[in-house]
């Protein structure tokens, strides 16, 4: 299977702290892959290292056959990588429409993708003139995902999409993510194992800054020992 993103043994420092101490992630094109692990294991840092927000000091990040480690974040993103960060990072002072428009990489992106986005998240359509600050948590999460869809992205990095959301909304979000995976590859960081296991085809477990185990999700679901050991949950 074709690999769209290949993270090879990256080491990332934040200040003087050695956060990632060798993470490998291989992402097959068109799949959903979940990064699993406990709080503080380095999942978010892995996403940020891919995107160059925290540049890895060692190792390689190969995206569509091209080494991207050390490039500036905006250059990496421009290659077609969308980012949905933890806590959504909606621009609070911008309206919903502006939040989407700002993600245009080519003029007219928003106009072209508008219908698709509002089909996916009908709620956003009626909120279009409101400032980002007035949205509820679930609406903000939808907007954050929608924002990553405005430009032509082949790879989406989604961090904790279910965090702090009501079960009904989580379900809606999961459907949306499944729909998106038809057209793009998704790397998902998810604390909620139930959500992750239903969405992802592959997984990588990160423990104390190292990738310790990876494989197909369907094998992990039955492997109670591994789940218990690395994720703490049953």
């Amino acid at each position, binding site marked *: 299977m074709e690999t769209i993103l290949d993270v090879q043994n990256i080491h990332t420092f934040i200040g003087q702290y050695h956060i990632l101490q060798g993470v490998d992630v291989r992402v097959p094109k068109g799949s959903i892959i979940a990064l699993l692990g406990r709080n503080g294991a380095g999942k978010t840092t892995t996403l940020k290292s891919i995107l160059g*927000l925290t540049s890895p000091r060692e190792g390689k990040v190969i995206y569509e056959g091209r080494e991207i480690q050390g490039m500036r*974040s*905006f250059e990496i993103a421009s290659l077609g990588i969308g*980012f949905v960060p933890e806590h959504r990072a909606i*621009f609070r*002072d*911008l309206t919903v429409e502006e939040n989407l428009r700002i993600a245009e990489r080519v003029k007219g992106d928003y106009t072209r993708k508008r219908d698709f986005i509002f089909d996916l998240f009908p709620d956003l359509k009626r909120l279009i003139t409101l400032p980002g600050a007035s949205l509820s948590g679930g609406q903000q999460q939808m907007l954050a995902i929608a924002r990553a869809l405005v430009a032509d992205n082949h790879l989406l990095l989604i961090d904790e999409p279910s965090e702090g959301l009501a079960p009904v909304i989580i379900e809606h979000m999961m459907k949306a993510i499944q729909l998106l995976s038809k057209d793009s590859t998704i790397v998902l960081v998810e604390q909620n194992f139930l959500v992750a296991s239903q969405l992802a085809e592959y997984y990588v477990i990160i423990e104390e800054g190292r990738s310790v185990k990876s494989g197909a999700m369907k094998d992990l679901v039955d492997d109670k020992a591994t789940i218990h050991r690395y994720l703490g949950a049953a």
Partner: protein
Amino acid sequence: MNTFIRKNLTLLITLAVLTALFIAAAQGMEDKDFVITLLRGLSVGSVTFLVASGFSLIFGLLDVLNLAHGTLFMIGAYIGWTVYVRPDTFVDLLTPLALTLSGFALRDVYPLLSPPRLASARMKRILPWALILVSVLLFGVILPRYPIAIWNVENYAQSPVTYAFMTDQGTRLPFPAMTFDKISPILAIVGLLIASLVGTYGLSLFGKDTQHATRWSWKSFIGFALLLIIALIGFLFNNALTQFLANLNSNWLFFIAVVVAVSSGAGLGALMEATLIRPLYSRPIYQLMLTLGLSAIGIEMVRAIWGRPEFVMPKPAFFDGAGEACPATTFADWWANHCSTILLLDGRVRVYNEIFIPLVGIVVLIAVWMLLQRTRLGMVIRAGVQDREMVEALGINVRRVFTMVFSLGVGLAALGGILAAPSMGLSNTMGESLFLNALIALAIGGLTNYPGAALGSVLVGLIQQFIIKYGQIGIPIPFTEIIFKPTPPLVPASTVLLMVIILLILPNGLLGKKE
């Protein structure tokens, strides 16, 4: 609506108290005094706003407290003055300046050149420094020999004070023609170009970690070509250009002075951000020290070039009419004669200081507001103020936006400087008091809030002018015979007092957002 009132109750009460104070202050004086005081307040407020808004834009997006902002305001004034009073100096400077900057215009091209192959790592470390040294030496040899007509600070008859006075009297001293007697012109021009290219290439070798295969296009050379053309025009048509500017009427010359001051400010800002501030984004304390140091250096440079004594900048003819029909009584009247003053409610109002400056202030307020609200750049700025990382993650080159905003902010300060020059005069200290005003205005209005900057600036201007006026006419204290006259030291103290009171009630300023 009810929730709006409940949420902003403190703010509304504060504003109501301020309005009541304002009305009370207005009751205490005659109409003509009130009109003049109000307009003066708006004028001071406008200039303050130009400095404050730029400072606040920069701080909001870049998190840099640019302590040199007041100095840049002053430099804008001095540069504008030079164009206005000594156009020959300005024309002489065009060529060397354009050549010096030409190298910077190629900064997108340098990273694409393959780095020089050198044997040892040590050579690689030394190379940039060696190139910069060569460049500095070349500049050092050529620039002092390059003929630039300039005043003489040491000699009173040729000092800026005299030139300013003569221009004000309408009798310009003749401008000397440019003659290359210390260096051959070809050598000077080629030398400066080489010095610039070598120096900027040396600078570009610093901190280059990875090579990216971005391609150059003809666009990368536009700036370079433009600067070369300016340099050539300045060189070939030097005398003709000087004569043209000298014979221009003062309105157009003033307009050119404003344009040059603002663009120099913007250019200086861009250069400052790209070379000095950028390496220090992760070290805020160093930024403070750097900008404070730059401020001191700027003041000393102005002292060295233009001298310590204060001097005036004559107003353009458009605002400087005199004669039988003056002061004008109606605006139609004024338009016909361009009187320097106009009678409003029996008060003699100076048109340039008290009407033109506030008008420019309003125009800039609206223009920048439109830029922030209606353009993509503005959208990126507003988003970046909140979360730079996320903006970058969307594929937007935030660093370029940083440079633009820094440039815009300094450009606004320079605009304030050149606008204020004809009314305040030029002095080495004009930046300091204004910068302090601007800081107080921002604290009052909300540090990174654009309308807040405007509101704070106007409040500071009004309070100062009303206190000054009441210093002349006195405030009768109720139920007593005492008439209280605020003394001059109370003028700055009053704004600080207002700031303290407002910060006690609303810790984020009037319009600042809660963190």
